[in-house]
């Protein structure tokens, strides 16, 4: 099987992706293995330029103003070999009042020593909507280091939503660094759900600056660490605009010798702005555990269900 076929098959297998997606002429997609483009398809109004660099890939995505992409755009970023560095420079410009949803499948199923580096600049025009769902599949040995970094500007009345989820395999190292700025009545909504085990390391640094009036922001992190895994979550939401509203929510479950740190920072610079935060770190709730054990589940089975629920 050629690399594209193999990668696509792997993605289908691991991510429950509908195999018809990449053959659908109405669905845009970009398939990259390592630092090589294996396939690409666009739709009217969406321009995707890709340059293969010596050490990575440079992707420019431009969506024309007013264009609404009906079906999710699929970005398949994979690294099938056991070792290597995948570096993606992503520049996204969403025109005003345009709408797009992206599904990123990041698949490193055999990784022993793989790095996935994403450096993104995302500009969302006034009134536009941009949703980015990033699902990762890693190798069971944890030989992956993931560095997603993004600087996001959310225009007036624009909407930015991102979800990061590891759906299979071990974390290895995940180091998320997202910085967002939100203009008047703009919305930023960022969620990360990650479960670490063994000696995995999870680092999340998300900041949201609500600079415009009535801007809104929610930063949500749901993390579980088992064995000797470590998690550090640093979420900062600041409000300088009048009537800006925001919430920082961090929940972390710790088992075994896992260590979790949460630093929710809220900063308000306007008397009419309001930001709240909630951080809870602890073991699996005993009443939840005993409820499931009273139905016949072992402690480990019950813990797994509770953690999966939290991360769902």
């Amino acid at each position, binding site marked *: 099987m050629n690399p594209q076929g193999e990668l696509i098959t792997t993605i289908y297998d691991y991510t429950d992706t509908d195999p018809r997606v990449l053959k659908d002429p109405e669905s845009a997609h970009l398939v990259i293995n390592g630092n090589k483009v294996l396939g690409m398809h666009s739709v009217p109004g969406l321009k995707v330029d890709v340059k293969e660099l010596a050490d990575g890939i440079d992707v420019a995505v431009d969506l024309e103003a007013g264009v609404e992409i009906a079906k999710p755009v699929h970005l398949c970023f994979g690294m099938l070999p056991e070792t290597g560095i995948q570096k993606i420079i992503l520049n996204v410009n969403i025109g005003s009042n345009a709408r797009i949803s992206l599904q990123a499948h990041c698949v490193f199923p055999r990784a022993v020593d793989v790095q996935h580096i994403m450096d993104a600049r995302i500009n969302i025009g006034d009134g536009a909507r941009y949703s980015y769902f990033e699902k990762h599949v890693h190798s069971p040995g944890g030989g992956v280091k993931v560095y997603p970094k993004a600087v996001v500007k959310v225009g007036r009345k624009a909407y930015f939503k991102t979800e990061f989820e590891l759906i299979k395999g071990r974390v290895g190292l995940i180091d998320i660094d997202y910085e967002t700025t939100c203009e008047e009545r703009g919305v930023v909504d960022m969620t990360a759900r990650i479960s670490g085990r063994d000696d995995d390391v999870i680092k999340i640094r998300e900041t949201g600056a609500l600079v415009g009036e009535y801007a809104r922001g929610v930063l949500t992190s*749901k993390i579980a660490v088992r064995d000797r895994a470590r998690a550090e979550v640093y979420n900062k939401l600041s409000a300088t605009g009048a009537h800006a509203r925001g919430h920082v929510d961090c*929940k972390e479950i710790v088992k075994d010798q896992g260590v979790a740190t949460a630093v929710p920072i809220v900063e308000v610079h306007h008397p009419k702005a309001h930001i709240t935060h909630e951080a809870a770190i602890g073991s699996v*709730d*005993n*009443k*939840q555990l*005993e*409820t*499931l*054990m*009273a*139905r*016949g*589940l*072992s*402690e480990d*089975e*019950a813990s797994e*269900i*509770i953690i*999966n*629920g*939290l*991360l*769902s």
Partner: protein
Amino acid sequence: MGILQVDNLSLKLNGKNILNNLTIDFWEGHIHAVVGPNGAGKSTLAATIMGLSGYRTFEGDISLKGKSIRDLALDERARLGITLAWQEPARFEGLSIREFIRSSAAQKSNELISEMLDKVGLEPDEYMDRAVDKTLSGGERKKVELASILAMKPRVALLDEPDSGIDIESINRIFEAVRLLKEGGTTVILITHSLAVLEQAEHAFLLCQGQLVDKGAVQKIKSYFQDKCLPCPHKNIPNEEMIGGKA
């Protein structure tokens, strides 16, 4: 024929006697009520039978079908067929009702989960994918918990205050579910201080201060509880005459 025996059970919590030399024999396939005022030790008895943390150190014995379960862990007791519905059911963030019921079900099919939700009066299409979290009312969570117990098909179901915090219509659904459990062969033990719940039982045990005050037909226990316990100015202090004569 007894299925669950509690023999000379005594338990202290924080140095205080909560259960005092309690001996009770629960008959197989019956609906029993353990009734008494607040603080009588009813919920402690249920927690001790189930083997919850904090209730594992006691004197006496508890046996299922003649075999002691005192050294068994909570989940081991559950796998033998004993289960408990909490007075205030737990909330599970992100866990769907479907997965919650499936985790305890004897058969894992969606059809069975739908059927159980239907039996407790929750529309399956509406509830199946909702989370067992704070978006459910107390009554809805109690129904979901009961649906999970129906799906488990236990041998012994301890239901702690099954009517607390729910409306009249829901109470009737819960009573119906209790009858369904019995029809399925489950021995039901209702932990209650409610006369309405007591009336659902076939046989009752009256507790006060961790002691068995009386046992027998529901009407007899109901009359005593209504006449002597509810108006009692010294809640949770057993009637000396009754304890001396019948405990």
